[in-house]
């Protein structure tokens, strides 16, 4: 859920939106978003699964814990929390360690 008003922070009403894809579905993001913030804002809490099929979201949001690994344009192990969004990027859930496509 996006915060629309805040007593301390300014929340710009005019935002530049861009779109990318998560598991083939269109996600609307602001140009300031990380992959993680855009997914959460759009209600996607599950970013992927562990080897043992446990759902996985983000945990630390600062690039330390590696809970939020996703596959971006075919490249696995991208940390969703510290990767800015890019127009048209294809983000996929990562299962386990992720398998690079050579």
């Amino acid at each position, binding site marked *: 859920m*996006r915060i629309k008003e805040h*007593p301390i922070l300014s929340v710009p009403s005019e935002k530049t939106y861009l779109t990318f894809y998560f598991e083939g579905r269109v996600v609307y993001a602001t140009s300031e978003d990380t992959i993680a913030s855009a997914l959460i804002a759009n209600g996607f809490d599950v970013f992927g699964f562990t080897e043992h099929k446990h759902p996985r979201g983000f945990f630390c949001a600062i690039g330390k814990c590696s809970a939020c690994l996703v596959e971006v344009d075919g490249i696995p192990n991208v940390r969703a929390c*510290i990767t800015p969004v890019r127009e048209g990027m294809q983000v996929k859930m990562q299962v386990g360690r992720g398998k690079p496509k050579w």
Partner: protein
Amino acid sequence: MVRHVKALVVGSGPAGLTGAIAIAESVGDGKDVVIIDEGIEPGGQLPKQTHKFFGHEGFYASVRGFEIGNLLVKKVKSLGVEIIQQATVTGIYEDVITVYDRVNNIVNEYLADYLLIATGATEKFLAFKNNTLPGVYGAGAVQTLMNQYKVLPGQSFLIVGAGNIGLIVAYQLVQAGAEVKAIVEASSRVGGYAVHANKVKRLGIPILLRHTILEAIGKDKVRGAVVAEIDERFKPIPGTEKEFVVDAICLAVGLQPNVELVAQTGAKLVYIPELGGYVPLRDENMRTTVHNVFVAGDLAGIEEATTAMIEGYIAGYNIAQELTGKSFKEKIEKMKKELEEFRRGPFSKKVRDGLKKMGIVFPEGGYMEEQQIDKGPLGKLRAVIECPQAIPCNPCETSCPTGAINVGGNINGIPQIDYTKCIGCGVCVMKCPGLAIFMIQEKDEYSLVGIPYELLPIPSNGTKVKLLDREGKDVADGEVDHVALNNKGKTHIVFLKVPKGFEDVVRSFRILAKSEEFICRCEEITKEDIERVIDMGITDYEELRRVLRIGMGPCGGKTCRTLTLQILSEKTGRPVSEIELGAYRPPTMPTPFEAVVKSVLTENSEVSENIPGGVKDE
């Protein structure tokens, strides 16, 4: 190609930034300094801190964290220091430092004469059932998301840990519009500052001491949490389990230093639990056991941002000293004195004990501990300070235009107020980072209590409110007298009219939500709406209908007429049978015009020719 710099700073948080400032200023050229940081924007964890910092003006006390970050970054850039973001130092080898630049997807190589490592800390994890379920977040992670990206990862939160981070995040969640069901804390007392705890308590958020989380409930996302009371050995007591319906759980159970890089330099690590676990062994100049490697901030021992900034300066001036061959002893000594003053208080005990194990001794005590009992002369508009612990903070003292507030010599002192000097201006209320100063004035019929307020909406004069005590419990009804707006600092003062005798009780308020007891479903008219109009003197059903449109929706009053008559009866004392019933007008249900027209057409076919735009043209 290997890039060679004189000083390489790892981390653009408060310690790294002040370190870079000290080096660049002293060397006279920022070109010799490069900062590398893996975040998207510089400032480390400062950009997500929306609260005002404690401390003194020299280190931005009473300025909000994200604003401090902006100021430091601006300073660093103005000195010509290059900050490389989205780049991670991946290895420190004997002959080279490797940096992975994520933007350009390339590993660059660096050499540095001096290294200042300020890599900060990581949030600790906690073992409980289902703890990897999406919706279980680090408290700092939630802060990042809501304050930097303006996204709330849930609506209803449980917070684990009542240290400063847990307390601050709870408060900030409410500011962002979320609900905090409870804060659970395993120990028998709140670990954070009392002023932070008081802020959340008076909002009505319970702090459950001697409680822990047992389980996160949910299949693919948190739907709830089970907490339980624990005994002296921190074991859950069977039968005390409670379930909270929440969609997010924040873990605020402490931080651990990010020591990987400093370890790779060959610097010796020591295990000191008081400092957060393994930390680099270092001297009072922040130098590690490797001659040209310095550390500062949370990496050197978990503490807070002000001391991180001071340590950054100390490390920076020492590096500058060696780079230039000049002496910056005076500046270094000044900063060491600052650290000494900050660390005298009771909340620095852990850090003092930890540093003692490294052979670095910091003195304690020497601050004003006495609590002021005098609440000032009755009838005078004045400030009352509720800051019960010795914490390193003094904006009340330095902001008071008449010099009425005094924390004593040391910054940890508990403030005292001289009521012969207080003019009731409220500046200290707006400046206090702990929101721990209130305004009071006894009047003839009622009293005024001024509350520091940083939430939305800002109430207008005359707004009816529930008056709450220090625990957030309803104690009386009141209303907003006026609001002293502070558009720059964003801490406003809401002055409440409270009943006599409640001056020392009321410390918060709740704006009464519009009644949701609907009487007329079609037009969404509540019981309160009807009662308000009756109070205006309108006691006739037909008249009520015209004013409120009650009974004029699609149902034609089938649902609401009896209830409205009952309310009229209750308010006027007349039996329902004596109240004018009002007309029952047709149609009794919405009827399409087409249907009406059709009926006419089938009765009399001649009419069809006269219908404009009708069946036949001439």
